[in-house]
């Protein structure tokens, strides 16, 4: 286990270093990326297979050696029921992105650079979910920034420069404040070890200190998650990013924020979280409503709504459910949050792949260009590209939380958690939040069904501006099918058999909440 976890992190890092060799240019670099991420996925699956399911609350595969004794930083890794699903999800999505880039690498730079950055990004993302030291967590959090910046700034679409800068500056401002919070927590508690901090449950930290720590660390996590009103970097970054960038941004990077809440703040500063939970819940619900209303505005005919931007806003809404689940401070709500994390990673990853495929084919993701602004003829994907249209419809209904698919359980549990929030939290407040979140699910259904109507339906003999330019196109191709099938299968599996995931997270969450 220990060796597996170390190899899981070391492999992509070694791969990234290997791309510095000039010999590995051109397609060879892309195949290197596929091989390394594939091997990494195999390691992640082996890790999951070797995971002792009878004690998911315990850290397994632990490495704990001193790295910088002067700062009391230890190289401390481990995996439990909370981080294991996220590690597997990350390895899977990275592999799929590497596989997808084989088909078509967007213009912008060399294959070597692309693969190197993708592997460096993978290292940072996997490390975030595996480290158990506050400063190491911060380091891993920062590692992802530079590669993601370059992926957007070099291989992105229109307006990529400003979007990439906005992404990195927002995140950095958040994480600089987060560092102050982590240092305060570590200095006051006397340790930077997450497991020790979690075992103490805030013992010896005054309520004032805890509130400051939650505010400072929470700001960094909220920017990443993103929580309204710190979300404004997200739509631009998603719209400008290349497909693989969007998939990893939505599928993994956003989860790093919510994971931080669960892993660091809830166990280490319970009093601070308790004080601020209603505000967190309120902002989460504002995010849900804001995200869905923004999407409804984008989907209207004539609004020139970009499909990628729409899915980005829908992420704001979906991450709102995750944050609401966390704010309830109950095992139910946090389980829902973790489930929604995985569900959103699978579904939104798939959605970004599909929209990327639409954009590749028609050269635009603009809804009005695809479906016609005035007449609203519809892009008629069912007629023109039936498999792609069907998959898009599948992903859209999964995203709106159709029971039986992965999007359903997370939202349900988050709302169930706010029906009965943790002791001491105001129940009327959380009931109101739950009702508003329920309204949010309706709005979500409304805009996603509108997307399906405008993009998938319509008369294939009537041409819209975009379809007129590209008359005959290939439907889903080999590499695309290979990339998307695992996501579809897992979306159905997680929807039909939620116990698989909940069985892993429940004991671990209970341990984090202090056995309650």
């Amino acid at each position: 286990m220990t060796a597996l976890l170390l190899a899981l992190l070391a492999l992509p890092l070694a791969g990234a270093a290997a791309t510095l060799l000039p010999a590995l240019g051109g397609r060879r670099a892309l195949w290197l990326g596929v091989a390394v991420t594939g091997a990494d996925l195999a390691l992640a699956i082996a890790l999951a297979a070797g995971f002792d399911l009878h004690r998911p609350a315990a850290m397994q595969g632990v490495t704990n050696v001193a790295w910088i004794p002067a700062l009391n930083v230890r190289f401390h890794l481990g995996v439990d029921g909370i981080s294991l699903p996220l590690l597997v999800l990350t390895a899977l999505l990275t592999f799929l992105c590497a596989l997808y880039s084989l088909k078509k690498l967007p213009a912008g730079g060399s294959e070597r650079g692309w693969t190197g950055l993708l592997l460096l990004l993978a290292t940072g993302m996997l490390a975030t979910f595996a480290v158990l030291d506050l400063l190491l967590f911060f380091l891993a959090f920062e590692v992802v920034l530079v590669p993601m910046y370059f992926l957007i700034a070099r291989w992105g679409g229109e307006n990529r420069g400003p979007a990439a800068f906005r992404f990195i500056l927002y995140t950095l401002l958040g994480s600089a404040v987060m560092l102050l919070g982590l240092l305060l927590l570590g200095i006051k508690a006397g340790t930077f070890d997450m497991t020790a901090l979690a075992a103490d449950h805030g013992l010896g930290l005054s309520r004032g200190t805890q509130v400051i720590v939650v505010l400072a660390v929470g700001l960094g996590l909220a920017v990443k998650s993103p929580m309204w009103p710190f979300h404004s970097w997200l739509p631009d970054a998603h719209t400008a990013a290349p497909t693989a960038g969007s998939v990893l941004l939505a599928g993994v990077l956003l989860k790093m924020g919510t994971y931080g809440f669960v892993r660091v703040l809830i166990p280490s500063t319970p009093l601070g979280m308790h004080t601020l939970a209603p505000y967190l819940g309120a902002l989460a619900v504002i995010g849900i409503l804001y995200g869905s209303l923004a999407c409804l505005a984008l989907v209207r005919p004539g609004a020139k709504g970009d499909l990628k931007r729409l899915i980005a806003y829908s992420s704001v809404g979906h991450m709102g459910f995750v944050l609401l689940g966390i704010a309830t401070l109950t095992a139910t709500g946090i389980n829902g949050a973790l489930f929604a994390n995985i569900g959103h990673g699978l579904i939104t990853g798939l959605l970004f792949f599909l929209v990327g495929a639409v954009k590749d084919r028609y050269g635009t993701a603009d809804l009005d260009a695809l479906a016609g602004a005035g007449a609203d003829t519809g892009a008629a994907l069912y007629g023109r590209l039936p498999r792609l249209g069907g998959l898009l419809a599948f992903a859209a209904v999964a995203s709106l939380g159709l029971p039986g698919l992965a999007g359903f359980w997370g939202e349900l549990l988050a709302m169930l958690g706010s029906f009965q929030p943790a002791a001491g939290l105001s129940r009327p407040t959380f009931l109101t939040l739950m009702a508003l979140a329920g309204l949010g699910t309706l709005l979500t259904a409304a805009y996603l069904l509108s997307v399906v109507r405008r993009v998938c339906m319509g008369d294939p003999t009537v041409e819209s501006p975009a379809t007129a330019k590209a008359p005959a196109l290939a439907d889903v191709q080999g590499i695309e099918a290979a990339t998307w099938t695992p996501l579809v299968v897992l979306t159905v599996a997680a929807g039909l058999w939620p116990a698989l995931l909940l069985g892993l997270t429940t004991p671990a969450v209970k341990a984090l909440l202090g056995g309650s």
Partner: protein
Amino acid sequence: MLTVAAPALDHLAGSLIQSVDWVAIAPPLVPAALALVVLVADLFLPPARKALLGWLSVAGLVASLALLLPLRSGHRRTFCLPSPTLPGPTHGPTSCSYVADHFALAFQLLVLGGALIVALMSLVSVEDDRLPAGEFWFLLLASTCGAALLPACRDLASLVVALELASLPAFALVALRRDGRGGEAALKFFLSSVTATAVTLLGVSFVYAASGSLYLDRIAAALPNVPGQLQPLTAVGTVLTLVGFAFKTAAVPFHFWVPDTYAGAPVPVAGYLSVVGKAAGLAGLAAIAVLGFHSYGRDWGLALAVLAALTMTVGNVGALRQRGDAPHSAVRLLAWSSIAQAGYLLVPIAAAGYGASPGAIGATVAFALVYGVVNLGAFAVVTSAGTRLDEYRGLFARRPAAALAMAFFLLNLAGLPPGVVGLFGKVVVFRAVVDAGMGWLAVIMAVNVVIALYYYLVWTARLFQPAPDAVATGRRVPSALVGALALAAALGVVLSVDPQIVLQLASGSLFG
């Protein structure tokens, strides 16, 4: 009778003739001796052989660095006076002018190592810019001697003398470039520096009046017992002394000379000023503040904190305003960023005034070492790749190794992975200030770190942009410059893998 008199005579003799520990003072002594050798040898060498002087200086600096090794236990001290309060046969605690403790050794490592990298860079520049070789190497070595002497000085007179020895040759170094820019730059540098020295001397005189001694340990003992009417004088004296030293680190508002001087000076000299010159001011500041004026920590702590906040903000805003197409914009950007970094360097010293843990000064030393390595690396790339920011567009396509090294240095300066040591350098500074409970300064610094990130990242992104068409492929880079670059890059990588090497400085008190 004789047996009684002998110790007394001994004591008398001891106060008149000091025994000198030559091993302890060897590191600053070697550059001084070599400076004279170079100056004389210059007279006898034919013009074709002048390059020998440069290699001689490099060898001397390597030897000087090697001479730090026998001192690493950190217990040597020399030029000592026995305590005046305990006369007689039992020699009390002595006050020493020169102490080679870990603080001094760390700064000497920075100064001599920095000077070595600068010397390697200069081997090329001296020839290219047609600088007078003998004078250049003499001045560089003399200034290095002063900067290496300063961190070990433990009385105010030696500190001021060492500081002047470090800065006076630096004015001349700046003026060596004979295209008119150098002269103006040197004059600006000279005038601000002299003002700073005057302020320091005024402060020193106040402190001497109040405490009756120039030795830092005696001042520390005397200051808490200063009579009431002298206390305001003492407070003003401490602040003025420290402010004078802070000015040498290019703190606001005495930073105006920096961008013009760096742009006017030969590029390696700019690198020298940004690292070695700054280290000298900083070492003096830290030693005086912590060893001498500790009891007035609240007074100078606040003054330094405000100064640090202003310095980093002004430096970063200045760096933001650099335009890519302006001449010398790369050097100017590094100049402004070095002002901002000076602000970060002052933060832990201010925190020490507020009673942070003993590691606070170590945080400054550790951060200074990290900054020295990566900043000199960046200057080494600038020496070879050009002084305008626009010249860096597409550098990766032309010279991948130099571009990757530059990206690594810039990300270290910004404090972003993979520049791990740059990141942890900032973390120790943050830790010191959070530990001292100065939340406002921590927040200002956090915002500044993000501002700084913008311009470092713009520069990094420029390296990887597609190259502008038909750029003449540059000439082959001289091996000495490659050596300087490789040295800095290798140090950066090693420190990033194992930051403990340098961060251990921040884990306890370095003095004693």
